[in-house]
């Protein structure tokens, strides 16, 4: 299997990142690719609108994808830790049983950051192989922390490969855990004292983890191959708000520090497609007061948008002169899937995929 093109769309919340990512994937399909869209933090509304169920399997979308094919994968964040444990301990069902009863595991179940991303990347890898995908669009969670997950598996691997695991696992093997036990070093003693009775659960979790180090490293490689590969393309999505612009600056800095310099800035809702009909109405004799007022309000909206658009493109051009900018229109329709279709016509795929 040759490595597929990988595009990661990142950006702050509320910029329409999931819709833009779906539209980009659809545009790729229309250009003849077998495309896969992966939503890390699936927007239920969009998932429903496109007829996708949340789950561990990719499925083909019912959108008209022209020459290519479009698949979607939307893993459910709520099952992430369980899926992760099952992936890690595939060959050791007894460990799965023990872990699912561990008090620490139960306490952490809903709260492990990063695990969902590792799981999502492994599922993505499987979908790429199963469906012979040649381009993947990964839609990250709508938050500044989203880029943290890129480095997270490495941190986790460092933890599992490091001395802490063996150290904690050794504590777990003892028959009694007490800070007064003089076989324990000073640091261990402090730690057990701070943890109190839960020290055994912590140590238990670590000794299970120590057994699956290699398997974890394999899962981790999927994440690295997709997200840290030098050919992976990062696109940042913004809208016309100052908050969205600040998020772009923040993410650009973070990604550049990881040597993953973003290749494109996509500005969503940057313009309203030309409304020639406004001129026709304004020049006709049949305007009513109500129509005149509503047109004045539309003109005012347009002026505000144009001003914000100019500022945004100017700031981006000044700070990121060598990065491709792409403007998308503001689409007002009732059905979310129609927005995806409408936006998909505005992507210059050859330019976005140029080397």
């Amino acid at each position: 299997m040759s490595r597929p093109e990988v595009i990661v769309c990142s950006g702050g919340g509320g910029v329409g990142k999931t819709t833009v990512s779906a539209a980009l994937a659809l545009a790729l399909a229309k250009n003849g690719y077998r495309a896969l869209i992966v939503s890390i933090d699936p927007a239920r509304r969009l998932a429903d609108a496109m007829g996708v169920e949340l789950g561990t399997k990719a499925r083909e979308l019912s959108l008209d994808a022209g020459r290519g094919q479009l698949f979607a994968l939307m893993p459910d964040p709520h099952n992430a830790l369980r899926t992760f444990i099952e992936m890690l301990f595939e060959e050791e069902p007894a460990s799965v049983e023990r872990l699912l009863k561990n008090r620490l595991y139960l306490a952490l179940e809903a709260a492990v950051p990063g695990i969902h991303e590792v799981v999502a990347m492994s599922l993505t890898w499987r979908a790429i192989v199963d469906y012979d995908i040649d381009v993947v669009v990964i839609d990250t969670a709508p938050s500044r922390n989203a880029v943290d997950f890129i480095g997270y598996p490495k941190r986790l691997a460092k933890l599992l490969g490091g001395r802490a695991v063996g150290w904690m696992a050794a504590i777990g093997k003892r028959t009694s855990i007490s800070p007064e036990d003089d076989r324990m070093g000073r640091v261990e003693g402090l730690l057990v004292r701070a943890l109190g009775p839960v020290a055994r659960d912590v140590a238990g979790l670590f000794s299970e983890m120590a057994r699956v180090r290699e398997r974890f490293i394999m899962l981790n490689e999927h994440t690295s191959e997709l997200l840290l590969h030098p050919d992976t393309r990062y696109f940042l999505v913004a809208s016309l708000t100052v908050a969205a612009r600040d998020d772009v600056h923040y993410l650009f800095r973070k990604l550049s520090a990881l040597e993953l310099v973003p290749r494109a800035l996509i500005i969503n809702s940057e313009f309203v497609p030309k409304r020639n009909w406004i001129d026709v109405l304004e020049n006709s004799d049949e305007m009513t007061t109500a129509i005149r007022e509503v047109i004045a309000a539309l003109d005012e909206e347009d002026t505000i948008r144009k001003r914000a658009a100019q500022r945004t493109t100017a700031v981006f051009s000044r700070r990121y002169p060598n990065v491709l900018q792409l403007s998308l229109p503001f689409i007002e329709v009732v059905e979310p899937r129609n927005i995806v279709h409408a936006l998909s016509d505005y992507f210059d795929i050859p330019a976005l995929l140029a080397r």
Partner: protein
Amino acid sequence: MPISEGNPGAHVPLAPAVFVTGKGGVGKTTVAAGLALAAAQADGESVYVEFGDGAGGRRVLRNRPGGLEHITLDPSRAVVKAATPVFGSARLAKLALDNFAMRPLIRAAPAIRELGVLELARQVVAEHPGKRVVFDMPATGHSVAWLKVARQGRELTGRGPIHDVCARLEDELVSPGRASVVVVTLPERLVLFETLALCDTVEKEVGLLVDRLVVNRVPQAPSAAALADAAALSNTPGRVGEAAAKLAELLSVRTTLREQVMEALNETVHRHGEGKGVEKGLTLLPMSGKDPTAATVADWLRNAGAA
């Protein structure tokens, strides 16, 4: 009762500490800053707390009045700082936590960091007696984990120093009367369903009350008269008729979107939220062409009786 403008004046008063939470991109920062600003305007002093680099607060709090203190907490330093009392001294805390084995653990493991951050939050509230302290929390999943950590830690440890830290957090910070939760959301059906699930979790698993449910960016109804006029005009043949049809289409899309929003609010908040108390704290904020500043949001909240 169908929703129109929220319930001005019917809101319960907020507790001294206010946790503002919600999904990413719903406008938490402006609502949190708006609440802090309104408190500073009413009481002369208040505190706005955010986590990270402080850029969000600086953006929305342009021309911040003197009585409003802006505090930025760094989660990556929270653990050692908060653990100092547990180990007796900063030196011992550093020895136990800031070493080759524990650094990667703390960096990768959840809950430990959350506990540290929550403890810093408690310290900020304790250092500002009598002032409203508004916390701009991280996005949903994370912030619930954050608030739950005190109760979980107490139940999990049973005794010992971590237990004592958690118990104090529950007594002094994470309890009704001490802290209010404000949930910010957007007027979309599925987002609202998720929001109600969040409110439920906050009340059952955290043990705090959601005192305000702020629905941000509620679209305004377009002019019905203009829609009627445009629809009538669209029957005339020729270019003017075609243009009027375009206008009628745009206005009817906006009308439908607004109706969907109100229907979703009625259905989710009233039917499914009934008896959960979120209804009485419901506050609707309008959609605006520009980024609203904290001052604008403070005015909106005050007018809705929600500040």
